[in-house]
């Protein structure tokens, strides 16, 4: 396997993505959604008070990306991070193009790595677009006022911005874990519906199971737990243990899912 080979596959996958409507719509929604939310908040009287930082959405523009972050963790991230990862491999089954792809000068390992990097790259781009858009929407629609953190202390705009950036960065590992899960399901089932849909269902089930009494260790092993790890960053004395734990769990999901996915792909007979 060569880096040049992987880069060639990434180039091809990115070129294909540019022509795909689903990916473009997903990114457009990431950009437009937060602005629609911020404008709605600005115009209406009611506030999303049962959400973290929901009370602050009219007081500080820095609250907007945090409210969006809390909401996105429920189902947007599993869907956003699966939309490409869950389709990138199974699309070759849908179009029956595996034989075409694998009779070029690229090994299966290079094709796998190229597609995985593309999927992870798209997930990063989606999270980045949502983060940048929600931050921009908060700044432009609400303003750059100081933010009251979860401990009740006032964060100056510079401090608030840094915390918001760290909070959004903390969701990248679990986002990658969902992407890896989507890739595995896409390869195992050879179906884009399963590759995209099942991670979303899995995400919802993980969210629901968090409300059920059970061992704390089990709860920590759920990918969705890592989506809430950013809460520790928004306190006066930040605590990072959930962040570290969530990142480790996400890393394990990524490693296990991709290892199984590669094994399945490398051993597969490409039939008609």
């Amino acid at each position, binding site marked *: 396997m060569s880096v*040049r*080979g992987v880069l*060639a*596959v990434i*180039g*091809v996958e990115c*070129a*294909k993505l540019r*022509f*795909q409507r689903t990916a473009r719509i997903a990114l457009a929604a990431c950009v437009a959604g937060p602005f629609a939310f911020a404008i709605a908040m600005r115009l209406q009287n009611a506030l999303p008070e049962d959400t973290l930082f929901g009370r602050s959405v009219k007081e500080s523009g820095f609250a907007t990306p945090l409210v969006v972050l809390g909401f996105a963790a429920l189902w947007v991230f599993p869907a956003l991070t699966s939309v490409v990862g869950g389709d990138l491999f199974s699309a070759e089954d849908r*179009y*029956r*193009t*595996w*034989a*075409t*792809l*694998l*009779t*070029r*000068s*690229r*090994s*299966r*390992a*290079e094709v796998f790595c190229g597609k995985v990097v593309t999927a992870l790259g798209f997930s990063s781009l989606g999270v980045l677009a949502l983060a940048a858009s929600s931050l921009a929407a908060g700044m432009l629609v609400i303003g750059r006022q100081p933010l009251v953190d979860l401990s009740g202390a006032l964060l100056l705009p510079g401090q608030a911005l840094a915390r918001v950036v760290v909070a959004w960065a903390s969701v990248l590992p679990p986002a990658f874990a969902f992407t890896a899960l989507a890739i595995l399901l896409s390869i195992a089932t050879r179906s884009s519906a399963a590759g995209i849909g099942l991670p979303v269902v899995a995400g919802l089930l993980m969210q629901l199971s968090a409300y059920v009494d059970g061992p704390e260790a089990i709860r920590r092993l759920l990918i969705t737990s890592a989506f809430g790890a950013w809460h520790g960053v928004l306190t006066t004395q930040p605590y990072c243990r959930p962040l570290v734990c969530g990142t480790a769990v996400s890393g394990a999901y990524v490693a296990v899912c991709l290892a199984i996915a590669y094994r399945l792909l*490398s*051993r597969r*007979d*490409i*039939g*008609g």
Partner: protein
Amino acid sequence: MLEQTALEAAGISKRYGAREALRRVDLVARPGRLHGLLGPNGAGKTTLMRVLLGLVTRDAGTVRVLGRTVDSTAGPVPDGVAGFVETPAVYPYLSGRQNLALLARLDGDKAPRQGDSIGQILEQVGLAAQADDAVSSYSAGMRQRVGLAAALLRSPRLLLLDEPTNFLDPAGGRDVRALLRRLADQGVAVVLSSHDMSEVEELCADLTILHLGQVIFSGTADQLRALALATVHELHTSDDHAALDLAARQPGVKVAADGKGSGLEVVADVAALDAYVVALGRVGVAVRSLVRRARAFESLFLELTGQRTRSARLDEPIERQSPAVTS
């Protein structure tokens, strides 16, 4: 310097569960030669092509292409090797040209024919006018041409093609056959899988016939022709009994009632058949119709693969060529 053999596959076996798709199959293709891979549906032709292209793992055997041993499905297809199996598929939302550009990109700097040459190849396969249309609007024949163009993009020295003239109109089929001949003239080894006897007979100097996953003939087309001594005809006369009696005294002619009362089966070469027809006239038996039922090549193929039709029921079994007879 040209390699002595472009492809050497030896003892290839492949099993799908209880079904043995390939059993100790050998195949040798030489530079500058068109090699026909023949067999009825389910004979294992496509599975063998998949094994050779590294799409399917083999259970046993070795594959050596262009002097290089191919170990498994994990590696890339070696440089200079190209082809497709069944109907070649590309991305329907892209144009033919865009698809080829992406495939050239996958080949990276290993494919010398890029950029402007995509246009030349599209011209070569007769797709230049529709090159910028989305593939989703292409007919099956046009998709076949895209597949062929994608293979040519790799500047192949070994070309493995599974039914390349499928879906093509007669003119398109003729163009592709001419293209394959040109490639062979330039030193490319072409392995052509087909069940179209006339196409293979027209194009290929070397043949391998597969049946139920096994090689039942391997050699040159001339060697196969030498086995095809007779042609089968259906004969209708004014007096079939007299015609049968006469046949018993006529050298080189085997005649039998077809069992359904609709004529006679005559197995004879052209000279013997002519003599038989003249003799029938002499004894006052009128020939009402004489129709060739199967071409010699085809009837032999049917015989070898155990697919004899009632018209090709030869009295003497043809010697099976297993293990393969090589030229």
